């Protein structure tokens, strides 16, 4: 079967009456799961395991993948409207989504985010399709030396995120603090339990979703309550049609910025190819890139629509990359992909290279499901957003306590561990302080996600390739890029510094 035939066969199956209803149900379910804080795509998939058992392979795969595909949309809506990222992947949306809501442009932000999600996913699976013939070679390019270099490259973005006039030092402090926090937990190499204070809860490191819920959502709640404002302060008079119009305007905004969408999607897909980095870091890097490439980086954090489009297109583009390793080798790149593999086996499909040889049409069912599921999630998300946006007009004295308990419930259900509720609270206070005092919070999160990756891969690379591991060809290329980007950023920083001085003086 040629790729083109398989592509059509996959489409035919995906829109057949046997499969399509499950894609629709799955996508709607995923949207709801995404809206609930703390529950991510892998939960949506795990929930469906008992149901897919008696389905045909195509239906079962389509069902779970559709549920997984639309989670980012649901999380994006709550991140924009309530400062509550449903999952880690939507956390980067929180810097410019809520300020837009406050300006009365919540509908526009949601429309832009939904469209960005869909386009990102489309880009991801498009790249996956192009790479299909050479998938194995591409995935194998990345080993510990390359991971190490990529993580270092990503860390240099801390400098971009901390670009805030005279606050560079504060941004760097935040970033380094994040790296330091990433060392919490059992050290893989020595077995030493670092910074755990004797708590079992911290063995596995700081749990990322509770940290983000605290760092952004709880901090935002404290801020909101102290200021005594409602989430949307200026547009309480919008009616249903007006909102819908705003949402449509957001769609156009994203389409108009298609170049940004493509660049951020490329970041997302690349991160997706690398197991272990995850969609949260993709979103943050895309945010950093959107800021770096923007003409008015100072607008970021105050409701720049690019700050919503960037991360939202990246976090769904990840899926294309993550599917690659899963399809090519049967090696899962994320916990969601691990569930997908388990489900494939349950359905009697052998993952790995045989899938590409014998069941290429199934691969395309996956690809089409991601596309269709995302599309349904996007459309449905725009309609869900309308009533939800009206909630943001409520006064903070009512909204804050209600959102607080929802956030703390979400923090608990991630792993079912009470200790994570406390982590959420502690990071809530820290996040509030950092917000008030202008320490860059995205810098801290990037450090937190990447810090320990750098250490682990440094150790492995050193042990496997000796002290000249960075001379491996791909690693060397990434290193050159890193150095270039690093000095370019420093150059830009110095330049903006000088501009600030001249403006001030």
């Amino acid at each position, binding site marked *: 079967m040629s790729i083109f035939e398989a592509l059509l066969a996959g489409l035919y199956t995906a829109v057949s009456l046997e499969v399509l209803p499950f894609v629709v149900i799955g996508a709607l379910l995923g949207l709801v799961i995404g809206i*609930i804080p703390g*529950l991510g795509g892998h939960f949506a998939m795990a*929930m469906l395991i008992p149901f897919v058992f008696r389905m045909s392979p195509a239906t079962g795969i389509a069902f779970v993948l559709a549920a997984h595909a639309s989670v980012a949309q649901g999380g994006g809506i709550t991140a924009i409207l309530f400062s509550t990222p449903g999952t880690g992947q939507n956390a980067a949306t929180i810097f410019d989504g809520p300020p837009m809501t406050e300006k009365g442009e919540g509908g526009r932000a949601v429309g832009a985010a939904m469209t960005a999600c869909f386009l990102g996913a489309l880009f991801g699976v498009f790249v996956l399709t192009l790479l299909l013939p050479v998938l194995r070679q591409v995935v194998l390019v990345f080993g510990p030396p390359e991971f190490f270099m990529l993580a270092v490259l990503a860390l240099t973005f801390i400098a971009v995120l901390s670009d805030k006039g005279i606050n560079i*030092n*504060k941004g*760097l*402090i935040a970033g*380094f*603090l994040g*790296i*330091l926090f990433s*060392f919490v937990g059992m*050290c893989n*190499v*020595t077995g*030493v339990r*670092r*910074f755990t204070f004797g708590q079992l809860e911290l063995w596995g490191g700081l749990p990322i979703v509770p940290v983000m819920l605290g760092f952004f959502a*709880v901090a935002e*709640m*404290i801020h909101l*309550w*102290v200021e005594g404002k409602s989430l949307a302060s200026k547009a309480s008079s919008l009616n249903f049609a007006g909102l819908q119009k705003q949402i449509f305007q957001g769609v156009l905004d994203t389409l108009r910025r298609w170049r940004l969408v493509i660049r951020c999607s490329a970041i997302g897909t690349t991160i997706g190819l690398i197991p272990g980095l995850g969609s949260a870091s993709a979103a943050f890097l895309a945010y950093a890139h959107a800021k770096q490439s923007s003409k008015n980086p100072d607008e970021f954090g105050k409701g720049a629509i690019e700050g919503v489009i960037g991360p939202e297109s990246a976090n769904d583009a990840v899926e294309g990359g993550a599917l690659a390793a899963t399809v090519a080798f049967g090696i899962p790149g994320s916990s969601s992909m691990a569930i997908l593999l388990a489900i494939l086996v349950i359905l009697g499909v052998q993952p790995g290279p045989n899938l590409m040889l014998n069941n290429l049409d199934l691969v395309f069912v996956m690809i089409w499901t991601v596309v269709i599921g995302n599309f349904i999630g996007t459309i449905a998300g725009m309609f869900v957003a309308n009533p939800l946006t009206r909630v943001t007009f409520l006064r903070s*004295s*009512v909204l*804050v*306590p*209600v959102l*607080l*308990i*929802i956030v*703390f*419930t979400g923090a*608990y*259900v991630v792993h*079912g561990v*009470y200790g994570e*509720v*406390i982590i959420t*609270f502690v990071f*809530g*206070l820290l996040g*509030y*302080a950092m917000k*008030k*005092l202008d320490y860059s919070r995205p810098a801290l999160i990037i450090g937190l996600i990447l*810090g320990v990756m*750098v*250490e682990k891969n*440094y*150790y492995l690379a050193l042990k496997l390739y000796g002290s000249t591991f960075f001379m491996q060809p791909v690693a060397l290329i990434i290193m050159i890029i890193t150095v270039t980007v690093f000095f370019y950023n420093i150059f830009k920083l110095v330049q903006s510094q000088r501009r600030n001085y001249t403006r001030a003086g």
Partner: protein
Amino acid sequence: MRDDSREKRRAITELLFGIFLLALLIVLFVMVMTYQPVARRAPLTVMIPLFVMLAAQLFIFYRRLKKLQSHQINDGKTEISIFKTRKLRKVLVITLFIISLMALIYLLGHVIGMAIFLIVFLRLVSRERWVLSLALGIGVPVALYLVFEKLLHIMVYPGIIHRYF
């Protein structure tokens, strides 16, 4: 004058937060020194530049504070009232309430803990009407319970008291 005291308040807050971070760093540093060399390596590489940057930042804060101090004629009164602001009080209140929410959840479990928290908060702090407080206070936790436990089959925290029954 008004603006000046606000700036001073901010400078002091900055300084305090910086000192907090420094103290945290020192605690972590002491902990790191007890680990074996390989586990120590990466955290130390991060700590040393972080220490330098923090020290620099603290120095900047300190200088700014001093500059502000010299601007202002000091009578002990403003010094004391500097932290008696409405905002700080609100931050403290909501922090205490979040702590009590966590304690309630820990003891009584999510559903009951959340209900008590919501009713008390809405009625006594937000000064909402009884009807609204009770409706939200009971409605939201029950809705969350139904969504999580009945619909998604995820157990919310049952509370430690649960263990004794």
